[in-house]
C-alpha cells in the first residue's frame, strides 16, 4: 500500500504540490488525472525518491519511502517515464532486460534476452526490434519499449506516466488491457497518469484528480460520472468553461 500524507514540493517559487494526500491500496489500480503541469509526474517521482518532498510523508507498506535498503526498495518498483527515458547507448533488448543483466536479479544473458523479447511481444513489438537502438524507433515504439522495461522484472508496484500518449487507438487498447492484466493477474499495485479518458475507464479501480497541488477528488471509477464535483466534471468532459482556467 502506498500512502502520501500532506506532501509539499516547490521548485523555487513554483509551488507544485501543496499538501497532496492519497492512498493506494495494495493490488489496485489508481489513475491520476489532472491538467498539464499540475505535478502528476512530480508526485510519482516523489514516491520513488527521485524528488525529495519539502514536507509531508510518503509511506510504502507502512514504512517511509527511501528508508532502509534503497536497492531492495527500488527493486519492488517498475516505472515508465513520460519521455520513455530509454538508454540510447544500449540496444532495445538490453534496455528491457536492464535489471535482469546486472545486480540482484541477474540472469544468464540468453535467458534475459528471451524474457525481453517476450515482454516486447506483450507490448505489441516484434522480435526484430530487439537489436535496434532506441533512436531508430518511432516515439510510440519507444514508449512501448519503456513499458516493456517497466514490467520486465515483474515488479509489485508499477508506475506508468502517460502509457498511451502518442499511440494509435488500437495500440492504446492493447496497452490498457496489458495494464489491467498486470494488476488483475499478477496482483500488482499500479499508479497510472493519463489524459486519455477511455484509458481511465479501462484501467482504473480508483481515480484521483490533482488540481492546484492537492487531490481535488478521489473515488472509485464508477463514481466518477456522478461525483458532482465541478472541477472533475469539467475535466472529464473536456469543457473549456468551468472552474479550471484554460490558461495556467
Amino acid at each position: 500500500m502506498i500512502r502520501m500524507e500532506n506532501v509539499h514540493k516547490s521548485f523555487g517559487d513554483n509551488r507544485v504540490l501543496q499538501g497532496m494526500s492519497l492512498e493506494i491500496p495494495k493490488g489496485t489500480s489508481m489513475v491520476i488525472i489532472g491538467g498539464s503541469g499540475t505535478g502528476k509526474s512530480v508526485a510519482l517521482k516523489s514516491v520513488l525518491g527521485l524528488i525529495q518532498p519539502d514536507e509531508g510523508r510518503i509511506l510504502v507498506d507502512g514504512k517511509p519511502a527511501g528508508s532502509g535498503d534503497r536497492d531492495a526498495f527500488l527493486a519492488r518498483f517498475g516505472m515508465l517515464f513520460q519521455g520513455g527515458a530509454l538508454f540510447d547507448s544500449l540496444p532495445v533488448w538490453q534496455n528491457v532486460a536492464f535489471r535482469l543483466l546486472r545486480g540482484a536479479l541477474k540472469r544468464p544473458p540468453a535467458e534475459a534476452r528471451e524474457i525481453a523479447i517476450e515482454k516486447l511481444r506483450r507490448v505489441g513489438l516484434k522480435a526484430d526490434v530487439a537489436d535496434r537502438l532506441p533512436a531508430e524507433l518511432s516515439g510510440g515504439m519507444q514508449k512501448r519499449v519503456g513499458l516493456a522495461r517497466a514490467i520486465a522484472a515483474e515488479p509489485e508496484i508499477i508506475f506508468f506516466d502517460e502509457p498511451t500518449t502518442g499511440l494509435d487507438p488500437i495500440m492504446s487498447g492493447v496497452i490498457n488491457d496489458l495494464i489491467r492484466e498486470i494488476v488483475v493477474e499478477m496482483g500488482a499495485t499500479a499508479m497510472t497518469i493519463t489524459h486519455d479518458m477511455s484509458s481511465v475507464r479501462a484501467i482504473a479501480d480508483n481515480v484521483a484528480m490533482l488540481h492546484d497541488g492537492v487531490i481535488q477528488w478521489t473515488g472509485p471509477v464508477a463514481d466518477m460520472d456522478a461525483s458532482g464535483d465541478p472541477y472533475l466534471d469539467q475535466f472529464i468532459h473536456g469543457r473549456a468553461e468551468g472552474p479550471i482556467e484554460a490558461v495556467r
Partner: protein
Amino acid sequence: MMLLAPLGQLGRAVLGALAAAGRISIFAWGAFSHMLRPPFYPRELLVALLNIGWLSLPVVGLTAVFTGGALALQIYAGGARFNAEAVVPQIVAIGMVRELGPVLVGLMIAARVTSSIAAEIATMKVTEQIDALVTLSTHPMKYLVAPRVAAALITVPVLVGIGDIIGVAGGYVVATENLGFNPAAYLKNTVDFLEWRDIVSSLVKGCAFGGIAAIMGCYYGMESGRGAQGVGRATKSSVEAAAVLILAANFVLTGVFFSL
C-alpha cells in the same frame, strides 16, 4: 554604498567558487569511493578505456609530434643567439617530458573527453535516463562516473607517456633531418640527460590531469540544468573548469617535484 558594490560582488563570486569547490570535492570523493566498492561494471569500464584511451591516441600523437618538432626549431634558433645550439636534445627532452607532454595531452583530453562525458551525462540527465537508472537499482555514480574516472586515471598517464615519446621523436626527426644533428648522438644525449624524476613526474601529472578531466565532465554532466541549454552550459563549464584546473594542478605538481 556605491563603492562597496564591487566588493560585494567579489565576495559573492569567491563564496560561489568556494561552494563549487566543496561540491566538486565531495563529488570526487564519492567517485573514488564508488570505484573501490562493488558492484563493478566491467563492460562500462572497457567502453570507457576504449573511448578515453585508445580513441584519443591519434589526437595525442599529432599534438605531440608537432610540438616536439616546433620545440626543436625554437630551441635551435634561440640557442644560436648565444652559441648553445647543441642543447636541443636536452631541452626538447626536458620540455616535452616535464611540461608540454603532460599539459598538452591533459588539455587535449579536456577538449575531447571532458566535453563528451559532460554532454553525454547531461543529455542522460535531461532525458530522465539518470532517473531511470536509479529506479532500475543502478547507482549512477557507480555505473556512469566510476568507470569513466577509473579509465581516465589508467589511460591518461599512458597517453602522456606515449605523447612524451612521440614529442621527443618529433624533435629528433626535425633535429636530425633539418638541423644537422647526428642521430646517435642526439639519442644518447636525450637518454643520458633524462632522470627518473622527470619521467615519474610526467606520469603522475598524467594521472592527475586524467582524473581532473573525467571528474569535471561527470560533475558538470550530473549537475546539468534542464533542456538543450542545460546540456550546452554543462559542456562549456566542464571544459573550462577542467582546463583551468589542469593548468593549476600542473603548477602545483611542478612545484612539488622540482623545487622541493
